[in-house]
């Protein structure tokens, strides 16, 4: 598991993809930060982290699209699947590699809270809570992206699948308002954004944390299933 994680993580930095993504991310964040300061909002940091999480819609699909798809295309999948590593370990390794790149990006973004702390007196607990929510939702989206990547050997298709899925998840609460009764409840239950918004308000709820982690775990399990299934049916 660690071998795969190390390799994939390094591979992000061997190609321009990680640098381009981080650069793009930081540039957009800078613009957001700048305009947020202009508005003069009191809880600037939670606003800021919320806009960071909306950026994930673009960042995560690009980050995860090659994870599984590239191995399938290059035939290196054979190497992984005929090694003594279990499928779960392989998928977790891939997930952790992408997640670590995500964490590196998150770490880079910490410069903005630091600026705020130096310049004013923001609610530090609120910043921590927002960031915790952000990291958890990032984990969910990364695992979703990995799952999308396992469905196809075409990276672009993988990116589109995860982009659409992330968009749906981000907006499922909005969709719920069109329905009433059971469907409304089901959609709201699935909606991750409501729980995420709690973090942004400074509410750290253990159920929400568990919910997010389970959400991510579901996609990892699904990815394992997809790979196992392929071995049994087609090869």
């Amino acid at each position, binding site marked *: 598991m660690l*071998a795969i994680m190390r390799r994939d993580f390094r591979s992000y930095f061997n190609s321009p993809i990680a640098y381009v993504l981080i650069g793009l991310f930081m540039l957009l964040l800078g613009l957001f930060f700048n305009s947020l300061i202009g508005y003069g909002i009191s809880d600037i940091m939670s606003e800021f982290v919320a806009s960071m999480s909306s950026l994930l819609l673009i960042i995560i699909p690009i980050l995860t699209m090659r994870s599984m798809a590239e191995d399938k295309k*290059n035939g290196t999948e054979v190497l992984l699947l005929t*090694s003594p590593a279990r499928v779960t370990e392989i998928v977790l390794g891939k997930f952790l590699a992408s997640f670590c790149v995500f964490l590196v990006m998150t770490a880079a973004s910490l410069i903005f809270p630091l600026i705020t702390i130096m310049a004013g007196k923001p609610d530090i607990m609120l910043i921590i809570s927002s960031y915790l929510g952000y990291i958890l939702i990032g984990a969910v989206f990364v695992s979703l992206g990995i799952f999308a990547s396992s469905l196809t050997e075409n990276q672009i298709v993988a990116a589109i699948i995860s982009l659409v899925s992330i968009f749906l998840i981000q907006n499922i609460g909005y969709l719920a308002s069109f329905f009433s009764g059971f469907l409304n409840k089901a959609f709201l239950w699935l909606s991750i954004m409501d729980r995420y918004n709690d973090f942004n308000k400074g509410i750290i709820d253990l159920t929400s944390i568990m919910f997010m982690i389970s959400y991510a775990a579901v996609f990892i399990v699904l990815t394992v299933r997809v790979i196992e299934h392929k071995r049994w049916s087609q090869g």
Partner: protein
Amino acid sequence: MIEIQNLTKEYGRIKAVDNISFNVGKGEILGFLGPNGAGKSTTMNILTGFISSTSGVVKVGGVDILENPVEVKKHIGYLPEHPPLYLDMTVKEYLDFCADLKGVPQNKWKSQKKDIMELVKITHVSHRLIKNLSKGYKQRVGLAQALVGSPEVLILDEPTVGLDPKQIIEIRNLIKALGKNHTIILSSHILPEVSAVCDRVVIINKGKIAAIDTPDNLSKALTDFSRFTVTVAGPENKVKDIISNIYGVKYLETGAKIKDDEYSYIVEADKNVDVRKPMFNQLAQQGFPILELKSLNLSLEEIFLQLTTSEKKEAM
């Protein structure tokens, strides 16, 4: 070392591998021969646990691959048809990754890496990116990958494909050398390769085993007549007359005209009768000297064709 019993793999209605069984002994080099699409790669993919079989049992070192895949995979090194290389890594990084993936202990790995790289002669390219290597070197890196962790069983799917003749000979010698302390299954559709390297050959066609034997026995068993060419000085019709009247001769054909009144003939005769002596005597009596006599053994290539085409007839 490897036991395969009633192995079948179906893709929908198509049977890619149809009820094949064979064993491979420890230290044996087994050749896996068949036309394209015969089921060679499918069988190898099943043996290595990359895909699963529809039914049948595969045991490596007595362990069932379905019951304990992780244990089995530890003992197998696999070079698939397309070497599974990460193009964005250097050779060294790639092999380190493979060792890491296969759980080779750090202290053993250092010396093993050196040995493997020297064995497949890639030491001088170890710092280069795999993407910049030639096809032959990529193949060698793929082979090196299979050797990582020195597994007891090596499964090599067309290891010499795409190499130049010199490299082919090198790789073949390497495989022979490896055969001394590894059990090897090697697939190929190049026949001389199999007869040069392998102890035993499995000929597979349309998912079924057409024959299993040593290369020598295969060519003996399949010749139910002796076959040779003979070059005789003398007019064609007269010589043909004499030869065809000898007891035991079943078939005669003029091969090539060498010069005026000097022809080579292809003769097929009953296996139990030596027709060479009467042929020599009778031709000499008539004053037609034999200039050359050469026996034609059925090459593996011909056996292969015979087996794979006779199967076709049966199917029809």
